[in-house]
């Protein structure tokens, strides 16, 4: 399956999605643009699981990232004819249903029997939550220290972040597609390397290297020219941006590259920007498999659009797993209007005062009101240096409350300002703001011993 054999063997893992909603074309481009052994698709962000949980409550056959089924359809020839294997955390809160949908698509495309889909379950702690709390696992919020019992009745989903072990097992049992629930983003890249190279459970440096390879490519094009501040004007052909590929060696060193003829750019600055993205303490990047040390990473140019990564060290993992819990946390809505020259900012400021007075007069109380002036100071706040009069300003006001009615009433107060507020106002064609239920994120830790993962192979 891989390109060469022996100690120089290289395994290629290609990233095809950096989040649910990423470029639909990317998976197909990754398997058609050149040789790859594995296609890695990351679909889950912090609150994605709760969205999927809501979908599953409405329909027990839902609760996974539907985009993945289309992606599988687009890469099916590569999987069936060329042996490319797919690893994805698209299973959400219903990995079995996701796997069945993949098998259905394969059957409909005349490839029945060609897929062995490994399904990883056991990350879903929702059914065990009360038992866990009862046995003395507080699932305290990692940021505030509060025990989960304070929001228990509002919990929507609870999933442990699981590591590479069950994915490696699925691959060892011959799966050519592996579907997981809340596995870590980085495990999706590390597990294929661990499987191919036979890295052991205490091979800390190599496991850490696999994790860092995963960190570099888990956000898709964000390491290959997308959202890249360094020399952004000169990054070529973003319309055809190449998603990243890791070319890994058995010793844990690897090259980050992309297919020839694609756009974007991979160089030391683009990879460095991604390395520091969402970084906490760089000396201790904690995963279920290993603690990786980002201060050990060495980067070197290795030809055009190639960066060599080496020197990585790791330490033993902790005895905890992180748990991603989502809970209902009230309601919010955001309203906007646009004010034109002259004196756009002053008009927007007057609109804001008028609205706030009306909300006060109605006795509406919110946990929070936030005003921003887009075009003036919405992104950098008081750090903004103003250089002359803004030609136009978008006034943006948001409210948050546990009381849905108060938020609903707020949404009716924006449009009237078009006729009964300050002048030269526009930009209201979108209609009344929508009330959105807030699903908030509650990070916690749990003992590894209480999470039992399971691997099934479906055909």
């Amino acid at each position: 399956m891989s390109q060469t054999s022996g100690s120089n063997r290289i395994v290629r893992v290609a990233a095809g999605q950096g989040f649910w909603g990423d470029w639909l074309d990317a998976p197909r481009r990754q398997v058609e643009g050149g040789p790859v052994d594995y296609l890695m698709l990351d679909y889950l962000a912090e609150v994605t699981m709760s969205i999927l949980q809501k979908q599953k409550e409405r329909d027990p056959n839902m609760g996974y990232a539907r985009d993945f089924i289309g992606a599988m359809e687009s890469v099916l020839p590569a999987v069936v004819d060329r042996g490319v294997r797919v690893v994805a955390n698209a299973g959400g809160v219903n990995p079995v249903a996701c796997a069945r949908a993949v098998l259905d698509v394969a059957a409909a495309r005349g490839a029945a029997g060609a897929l062995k889909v490994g399904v990883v379950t056991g990350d879903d702690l929702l059914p065990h939550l009360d038992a866990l709390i009862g046995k003395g696992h507080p699932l305290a919020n990692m940021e505030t220290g509060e025990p989960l019992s304070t929001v228990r009745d509002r919990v929507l989903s609870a999933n442990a972040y699981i590591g590479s072990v069950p994915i490696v097992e699925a691959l060892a049992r011959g799966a050519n597609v592996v579907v997981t629930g809340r596995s870590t983003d980085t495990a999706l890249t590390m597990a294929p390397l661990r499987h191919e190279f036979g890295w052991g459970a205490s091979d800390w440096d190599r496991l850490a290297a696999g994790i860092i390879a995963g960190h570099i490519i888990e956000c898709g094009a964000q390491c290959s020219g997308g959202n890249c501040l360094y020399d952004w004007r000169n990054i070529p052909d973003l319309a055809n941006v190449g998603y990243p590929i890791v070319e890994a060696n058995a010793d844990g060193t690897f090259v980050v590259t992309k297919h020839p003829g694609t756009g974007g750019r991979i160089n030391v600055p683009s990879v460095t920007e991604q390395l520091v993205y969402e970084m906490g303490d760089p000396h201790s990047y904690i995963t279920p498999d290993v603690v990786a040390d980002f201060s050990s990473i060495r980067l070197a140019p290795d030809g055009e659009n190639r960066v060599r990564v080496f020197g990585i060290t790791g330490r033993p993992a902790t005895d905890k797993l992180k748990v991603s819990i989502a809970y209902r946390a009230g309601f919010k809505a955001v309203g906007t209007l646009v004010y034109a020259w002259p004196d756009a900012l002053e008009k927007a400021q007057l609109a804001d005062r008028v609205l706030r007075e009306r909300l006060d007069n109605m006795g509406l109380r919110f946990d929070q009101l936030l005003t921003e002036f887009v075009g003036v100071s919405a992104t950098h706040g008081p750090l903004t240096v103003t250089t002359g009069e803004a030609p136009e300003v978008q006034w943006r006001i948001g409210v948050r409350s546990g009381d849905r009615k108060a938020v609903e009433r707020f949404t009716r107060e924006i449009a009237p300002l078009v006729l009964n507020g300050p002048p030269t106002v526009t930009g209201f064609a979108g209609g009344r703001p929508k009330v959105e239920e807030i699903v908030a994120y509650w990070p916690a830790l749990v003992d590894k011993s209480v999470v039992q993962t399971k691997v099934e192979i479906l055909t």
Partner: protein
Amino acid sequence: MKVRLVDIAHARSGDKGDTANVGVIALRPEWYPFIAESLTRARVAQHFAGVITGDVERFELPNLNALNFLLHGALDGGGTLSLKTDAQGKVFSTAMLRMLLDVDDDRARSLKLPEAPHK
């Protein structure tokens, strides 16, 4: 003389809950020591005074010619609770790069640091 951080570094930022992280990367390796000396925890906390409600943590990554800062209380509650346009801290990167740094002229010359434009 004065040097604008935006002329000597690039950056990327992201979120973890109510904390924004900002990675600052020297545009040239020889500029990293100057950036690391200038961007102390106190100096960064002062820069973001009135923007963040918590404290600042600072980590050095000389292997990447980079610094990583954690800005606590930066995101108005963070994630889905936040009403901010930048609820996920994506543009704290260039907010950091607004910093104006002092450097003595000799050092600026030897490092070939670009002088900030005069107003």
